[in-house]
Every structure is written in structure tokens, then in C-alpha cells.
């Protein structure tokens, strides 16, 4: 039932036995997930099921308690300290891997004191040490692609939510990421602005980008993704091809979830 793209390469992302607790509550209870190159995976689940935490563990914005994260074949080195708490071994490795993963947040999180173009060229110049001219040239192509070339010199506060999120997508793309991580990219938007962001995301999927998308947009999950993951209370309850999942799901909970 699971239609994996049959390309024999290293997976873009591998998550093995991922566990995470906040205080006494275990939020992720052992997640295993492999995202192959070019795959678009939609992660669904009710609020509080651990979707954000899972995504944030991939780029170490949250430190997992147990399990392994492997990005393009490279395992993020972790160790347990004296108190039995999991910690990062090499901060620089994490920083480098983060720079290879583009993250898009629900609340955009553009840097408010920088214009759109400055937001986009910031990390390419300062993290990847690319030349300013090159970064600007590439940023302009990206702005064109997400359809806000005319907003180049605007500050985030002067843009609509949809424009801000498209700028944030351009900012993430400017790092030439191997994988794009989206955490409910349209949930903070007015309904009439959702479409413009989904269009951009669909165009990225069509280019063959690897994407992990936490979303409540069932249309996107069904029509754009190659695989749907349904998370329930910190565990993957069911996963599969969207065609299968949306018509013929095994999980009673998932059927309830999609019927609203």
C-alpha cells in the first residue's frame, strides 16, 4: 500500500526511535520515519499530538531524549550527560545541519528590523559566507518565484500575512536546503490568504523538493503529498499514500479526524 519512490539513494531524513518528554509528559513516544529524497510528507494530527515537537527535533530546536536523527546520511551526534540527560555533542555539526534544512514557521518569524531582501540574504551571507552580490541575485530570483518581487524593500510589518509567509519561504530556500520543514505554514493566515502560500508550496513539491509539512490543509495533504502521516498522542497511528488514507484508512481515529 505504501508507494515509496523507487530511487535507491540515501534517505533525506531518517528518524529512529525518537522520544521526547516535557517534564512528566511524554510528547513523542518513539517515532520512526524515513523521508526519501523528493518525497512530500504531510503530517496530520490533532492539536497537542506532537507534530511541532517532532519537526523541531529534526533540526534540534528541541533536543530529543532518545533516538537518532540522520540528515542525508549524517547522524546528529548525541550523548547523555552525567544526569542522564541527552545533549548535543558538537554544536557546529548541528548548526551546519540546520543550515541544510529550511524551516518555515506558523508565525513567519521574519526579522522585523530587516527588509524582505535583507531577511533573505542574511543567512546566506553570514552563515554560508556567500558573497553579497551572489546572495542578492539569488534572492531576487526567489522573490520572483514566490511572487513578491515588488515587496523587495518592504519591512515585514508592512506586508500581509500571506506575503510574509512567502518571504519566509524564500528566506528558507535561500539556504539551498536539502529538506524543507513546514510547521502549519497557513494556520496563522486569514482564509483568503491561504491559497497564495499553498500555491508556492505546491510549486516546490512539483520541483521535486523534499518536504515535511505539518498541516491542517486536507486538500494539500491529499493532492500534493506522496505520503500522509497521522500522529496521535506522540506516536504514528497510521501512514500511507494519501489516496489510500483518505478513502480507506484503517484507523478509526484518522477517519474521525478527517471527517472533522
Amino acid at each position: 500500500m505504501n508507494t515509496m519512490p523507487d530511487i535507491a539513494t540515501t534517505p533525506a531524513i531518517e528518524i529512529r526511535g525518537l522520544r521526547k518528554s516535557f517534564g512528566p509528559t511524554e510528547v513523542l513516544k518513539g517515532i520512526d520515519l524515513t523521508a526519501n529524497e523528493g518525497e512530500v510528507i504531510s503530517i496530520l494530527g490533532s492539536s497537542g499530538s506532537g507534530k511541532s515537537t517532532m519537526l523541531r527535533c529534526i533540526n534540534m530546536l528541541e533536543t530529543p531524549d532518545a533516538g537518532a536523527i540522520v540528515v542525508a546520511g549524517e547522524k546528529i551526534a548525541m550523548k547523555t550527560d552525567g544526569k542522564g540527560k541527552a545533549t548535543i555533542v558538537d554544536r557546529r555539526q548541528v548548526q551546519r545541519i540546520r543550515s541544510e534544512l529550511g524551516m518555515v514557521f506558523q508565525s513567519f518569524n521574519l526579522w522585523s528590523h530587516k527588509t524582505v531582501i535583507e531577511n533573505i540574504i542574511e543567512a546566506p551571507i553570514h552563515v554560508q559566507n556567500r558573497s553579497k552580490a551572489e546572495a542578492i541575485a539569488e534572492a531576487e530570483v526567489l522573490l520572483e518565484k514566490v511572487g513578491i518581487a515588488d515587496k523587495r524593500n518592504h519591512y515585514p510589518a508592512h506586508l500581509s500575512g500571506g506575503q510574509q509567509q512567502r518571504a519566509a519561504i524564500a528566506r528558507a530556500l535561500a539556504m539551498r536546503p536539502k529538506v524543507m520543514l513546514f510547521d502549519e505554514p497557513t494556520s496563522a493566515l486569514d482564509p483568503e490568504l491561504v491559497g497564495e502560500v499553498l500555491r508556492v508550496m505546491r510549486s516546490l513539491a512539483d520541483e521535486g523538493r523534499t518536504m515535511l509539512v505539518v498541516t491542517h490543509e486536507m486538500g494539500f495533504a491529499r493532492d500534493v503529498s506522496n505520503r500522509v502521516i497521522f500522529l496521535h498522542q506522540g506516536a504514528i497511528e497510521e501512514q500511507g499514500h494519501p489516496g489510500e488514507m483518505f478513502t480507506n484508512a484503517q484507523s478509526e481515529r484518522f477517519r474521525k479526524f478527517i471527517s472533522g
Partner: protein
Amino acid sequence: MDIAFLYETFVTLISAIPLTLQLAATSVALGAVLALGLAVCRLSGIWPLDWFARGYIFIFRGTPLLVQIFLIYYGLGQFREVRRSAFWFILRDPYWCAIIALMLCTAAYSAEIIRGGLQAVPHGQIEAARACGMSRFMVFRRIILPLAIRQALPAYSNEIISMVKATSLASIITIMEVTGVAAKIISETYRAIEVFVVAGAIYLAINFILTRVVALIEYRLSPHLRQAPALPAVAAGEMR
């Protein structure tokens, strides 16, 4: 009104302005560095650092600057260890004692202003910077500090102004800045009102200019807080 005397006083006091400005600028600049360190200590989450900074701020905000100046200039010299230390050549000089006292005092106030600015930086913007692969130091330098400065500047300008006025206390330890020179003229002429009116006017003028300069800096740093620039007709036509 003795215009000639006022003018003469004014000319004499003008010659003391550079020293006043020097005291203010040096102590504010050094104090800002110290304040940033204290604010970072306060927010470090490492309790010895946090409590050191808290104690420092408590003491220097809670005692009069005049008392601090006396203690540093007259008090420290009482200790033989201080007189024999390598710092004695600084601590016996009233100029440096005044700078040190002013700096230590402004650092306490500024630390709280800067802490407020740092805390006001939206967490999501910091997270976005980390997610790009920035190091902690780069996140601080490129994102947190610029945002905190913009946030803190209005309150900080008050602090700079009060420091300009506070330099007048240095006259008490023989420093001949504007107030010191004014006091000397009074002791020679017994014309307190005229001399202090002129001295007051000079402080007023300095602070007026200072306020304008800070307002200009604030304006330059905060285009993102203003209304979007009026768009040229062509661009406006393209807007959806």
C-alpha cells in the same frame, strides 16, 4: 540685568563644556559596555551571575551618586592596599574617580533598560535565526542585540540626559566642568543667580541637542515601525 557680566560668564563657562561632554561621553560609553554585561548576567540563568548583577544593581541604584563619588575618591584612599596597588595612579586622580563613579552608576540603570530590551525580542525571531544555523553569538550580534537596542533606545536616551546632568556632581571633587567653573565664578563674584542661570541654560542647550540627535538615530533605526512608504504610482498599480 548685567548683560556684559552674563556674556562674560557665558564665555568662561563655554570653555568648560568640553570637559562636561567628555565626562558624560566616557562614562556613558564605558557604562553601556558594563551594563550589557550585567544585563546578560541577569538573563544568563546562571544563578551566581544573576545574583551578582542583582546585588550590583540594588546597591548602585539605591545609593546617591554623590555618596558613591565621595566613597570612591576619598574612601578608597583610606586603604593602604589601594594606595599601594597598581590602580592608585587612577584612583588618586579626581577625573578618573568621577568617570568611574558615573560609569558604575549609569551601568546599574542601563542594565535594567537593556534587560528590558533584550527580553522584548520576540522568541520566534530568535528561533528563526537558530534554525538558519547561526551560532549563539551570531544570533546575539545580528538579531537579538539590534532588536533590543531599538526597543531600549527611548528609555536609554533619558539615561544619557540624566548622566549629562549628573556630571555636575564631579565639581564636588575639584573637577572644573561647567558647574565647577560656575561655582568658582560665584566664589569670586558672589553673583549666584546670574551664574547659575547661565550654567543651567548651557545644560539645557546640551540636552536639547542630545535629544534631537537621539531622536534622529531612533528615526533612522525604526523604519519598520512606521507607516509603509508611499508607493510610487506604478508600484501601487501592481498591488493586489
